[in-house]
């Protein structure tokens, strides 16, 4: 590789180790980048929609993941190409921001790149394409706002929320009992939602899974589950009206942080030390008992002696509870996490109506349920399923559904799904294109074509004739001036998405378009790729 030559044709050395690097520039660089982006989009294209297929991903350690969640697929794909990594980032940011539509955003970006390639071949400058895309995306987002609908829901009327979650879940493997799971998700979100501030803290919803049973056994627990059992096998398995002491100090003799040594040189010292030690344990347990606790949850372990003393004083205890769980328990029961025994007071105890231990299956598998908490703001979704991969996939699906429900609480505008919003945007963008003078007009039109690719992929995955179906729906939309017509993926018989109750959140869709445009703009602006060649 050489960047510049002198008058005799000998290369100047400009870069470090110049002859070992390869360089792509101009159109060639753009085309290479576009083809990489398209390759990623092509992988995800078949996962789109209710009839989308799954992918098996085998990790470097041989673990198997089966999923059709775009973000998960891309994350685990172990991509090497830099442009492909941008696409992975794109899907991830959609996941962080919205939680759903991670596949759609990548497919959209892929389509935009494909269109851009054609324009590049015609000799349109990439920056002009990028600007055209930018204008078009603004039109599309505005149009989405225009066709969106607000709907009301409340603590009693959750039906619209459930319907939206069902749309999200229907593309996952769990669609067998999507109604059940959607209801669970909505109830979970509503119980932790702050409807005044329109905010939801999803950290308060814990999603736990355990293999065995069937998907229908998945339940919502108004409380916390901890994958632990009582520290002593003979402690009571069920406690009603529990007062819980939440400790982050071990039931062990104190270990001062400063280095010190206790020297024993006489018999008396030995004996006092022994007495002291016994007193420690006694004091610790007595402290808990004194404040009226009926259950001790501790982040650390217990000494055998302490364990027996607890058992002896009829004070059930749980040890080795993780930090996150501890916090959730504290929130749910309204207790305070106590770092020292001296600071334990009655007010700092948490309260729960029922704490019980439940065992599963034939192995010694136990879980602790903490229910009827003082503050029922923390909930747990407990998933059952036939195998590990199923549980993992269900967890991801529930996460998506929870995000959707949260987005709706933040902003209750929706657009209709099934590709109807994209088609409608495409019509609007197409119409707007003619008004723009200059080369951007072509880019805007290309954007409209790219928008069509989402419904096209939906139709393709559902086994319909893609071009035929899309043009039929499009003409129907224009003729009746009704933006609710989409692709009838499930073969229901109507393509009015309002009747099918298929909707998605407005912010999710807007974000998809904005993010995809941004990434495509970024890729288009690259005109020089210098990479170290293979060593």
């Amino acid at each position, binding site marked *: 590789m050489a960047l510049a030559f002198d008058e005799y044709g000998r290369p100047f050395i400009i870069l470090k180790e110049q002859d070992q690097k390869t360089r792509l520039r101009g159109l060639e660089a753009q*085309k290479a980048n576009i083809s990489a982006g398209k390759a990623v989009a092509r992988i995800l294209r078949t996962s789109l929609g209710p009839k989308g297929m799954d992918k098996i991903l085998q990790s470097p350690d041989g673990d198997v993941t*089966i999923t059709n969640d775009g973000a998960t697929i891309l994350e685990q794909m*172990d991509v090497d190409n830099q442009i492909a990594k941008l696409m992975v980032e794109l899907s991830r940011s959609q996941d962080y921001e919205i939680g759903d539509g991670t596949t759609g955003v990548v497919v959209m970006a892929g389509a935009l790149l494909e269109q851009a390639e054609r324009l590049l071949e015609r000799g349109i400058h990439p920056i002009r394409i990028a600007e055209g895309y930018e204008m078009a995306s603004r039109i599309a987002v505005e149009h989405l706002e225009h066709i969106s609908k607000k709907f009301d829901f409340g603590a009693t009327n959750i039906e619209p929320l459930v319907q939206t979650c069902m749309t999200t879940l229907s593309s996952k493997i769990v669609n067998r009992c999507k109604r059940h799971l959607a209801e669970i998700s909505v109830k979970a979100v509503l119980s932790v939602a702050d409807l005044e501030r329109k905010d939801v803290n999803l950290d308060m919803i814990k999603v736990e899974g355990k293999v065995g049973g069937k998907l229908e056994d998945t339940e919502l627990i108004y409380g916390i589950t901890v994958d632990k059992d009582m520290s002593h096998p003979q402690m009571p398995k069920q406690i009603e009206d529990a007062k819980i002491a939440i400790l982050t100090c071990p039931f062990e003799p104190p270990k001062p942080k400063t280095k010190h*040594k206790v020297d024993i040189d006489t018999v008396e010292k*030995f*004996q006092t030390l022994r007495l002291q030690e016994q007193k420690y344990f006694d004091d610790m347990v007595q402290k808990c008992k004194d404040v009226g606790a009926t259950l001790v949850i501790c982040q650390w372990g217990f000494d055998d002696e302490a364990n027996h003393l607890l058992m002896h004083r009829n004070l059930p205890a749980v040890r080795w509870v993780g930090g996150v769980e501890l916090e959730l328990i504290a929130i749910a029961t309204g207790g305070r996490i106590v770092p020292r025994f001296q600071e334990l007071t009655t007010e700092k105890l948490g309260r729960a109506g029922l704490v019980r231990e439940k065992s599963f299956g*034939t192995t010694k598998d136990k879980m602790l349920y903490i229910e009827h908490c003082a503050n029922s703001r923390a909930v747990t979704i407990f998933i059952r399923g036939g195998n590990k991969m199923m549980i993992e996939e269900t967890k991801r699906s529930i996460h998506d559904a929870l995000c959707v429900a949260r987005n709706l609480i933040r902003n209750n505008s929706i657009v209709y799904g099934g590709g109807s919003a994209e088609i409608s945007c495409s019509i609007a963008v197409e119409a707007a294109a003619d008004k723009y003078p200059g080369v951007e007009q072509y880019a805007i039109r290309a954007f409209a074509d790219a928008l069509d690719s989402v419904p096209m992929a939906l139709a393709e995955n559902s086994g319909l004739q893609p071009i035929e179906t899309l043009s039929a729906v499009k003409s129907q939309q224009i003729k009746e001036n009704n933006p609710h017509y989409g692709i009838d993926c499930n073969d229901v018989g109507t393509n009015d998405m309002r009747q099918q109750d298929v909707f998605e959140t407005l912010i999710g869709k807007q974000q998809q378009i904005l993010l995809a445009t941004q990434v495509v703009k970024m890729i288009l602006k690259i005109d020089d790729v210098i990479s170290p060649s293979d060593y």
Partner: protein
Amino acid sequence: MAIEKIFKDDASEEKGERARMASFVGAIAITDLVKTTLGPKGMDKILQSTGRGHGVTVTNDGATILKSLHIDNPAAKVLIDISKVQDDEVGDGTTSVVVLAGELLREAEKLVAAKIHPMTIISGYRMAAECARNALLQRVADNKGSAEKFRSDLMKIAMTTLSSKILSQDKVYFAQLAVDAVMRLKGSTNLEAIQIIKKPGGSLRDSFLDEGFILDKKIGLGQPKRIENAKILVANTAMDTDKVKIYGARVRVDSMSKVAEIEGAEKEKMREKVQKIIAHGINCFVNRQLIYNFPEELFADAGVLAIEHADFDGIERLALVTGGEIASTFDNPESVKLGHCDLIEEIMIGEDKLIHFSGVEMGQACTIVLRGASHHVLDEAERSLHDALCVLSQTVNDTRVLFGGGWPEMVMAKEVDELARKTPGKKSHAIEAFSRALVAIPTIIADNAGLDSADLVAQLRAAHHKEGCNAGIDVISGSVGDMADLGISESFKVKQAVLLSATEAAEMILRVDEIITCAPRQREDRM
């Protein structure tokens, strides 16, 4: 410039038909592997480990076989996972679930080749599974009301489970054993309470269920070998040198005499501890940790039987049977609950001495002593018995019972066939395929028994055409027989779990259209 490779080196990607093919082939290969172990005449497999010693296991337990396989095919891993879950959840049917899932995929492969979309197959399978489950629910028998009938149900289930295992020679005997053990649990599914002790020597028939509790430990020297009306203290405490637990404490002395003094104090401390323990008024002391010679001697002097180093499970079970609590401090003897039993004695099984606690207060726990010619036989016997115990304990909670011998599959297949006839559209092909996959199970059972499967299954199908028929395959006589008369039963819970998780797994594999394998992690060679 060609399309860039977007993956890292060594990573591979398989798409569409090829991906589907890879997963079908993997899953079917696993199925064929375990297929021959199904049914009463199923064969065993030898598994040799690659670890040191190349240990050998002989088994026909599906879960055990699959667990020991190192598989690279992702679809096969799904099957192994369902088998493991089946083992954890209900304990039996681990082979059936894999075989059924494999058969479902085999049928699906044909449908895919006939250009039916996987999603259509899945929706057909779902309808069929639901219908099959309802068919089972309708024909289920429930004898919860009468204890006697329920017990005979349990006996039948245990015998059916055991008949496919190494214990089939003595299945009546072992079924009795298992039922007795499970009935003692009184509805709890905590199989920890049933202890299985394996002692080589004798024959399988010499195995027995002991009402009391047997601890695989020796009695300390010079201590009584037989105690009547024992009061037992179960403890978990350090009886070697009681360490000072305060952090940073250490002994620093400046003369020999001081060392001796402190040693004396230490001894005194131990003596005090022993005195405190003895003050509980006990005559037997069982500790989870070691007991050093000095305290042991003190116990012997006091005429107390001291047993050291009983492991965690032993301690927990002992606490469970004798009703005592596990103690770690000994300052208030009046409030510590002691365990009781009528008689503690040392007994001999084969060449080993064991401690036998009989006449215990709480009858929940019990011990099964297995005898047999070799370790392999004993291991397999334990696995078989474990399967039976699992199934029984699950059945105690869910008392619904079905017939065995391919009967449930035929009942389901019949209903599913009906459904296929009523369903319009391509789905009906999938539903039909589901019923074919169900019928494959009795076919395999017959094949494994060396019978003419085509003839038998046809007879069976004809017999099932009549309402309320109890026909199934009688492997012993090689004909179609009445399962009610032959007393072959299976637990509804097991069958349901098999049906649901097999369908779920098949569905999962069918949905896949792409396999992306990451580059294997580089490990440094530890040669």
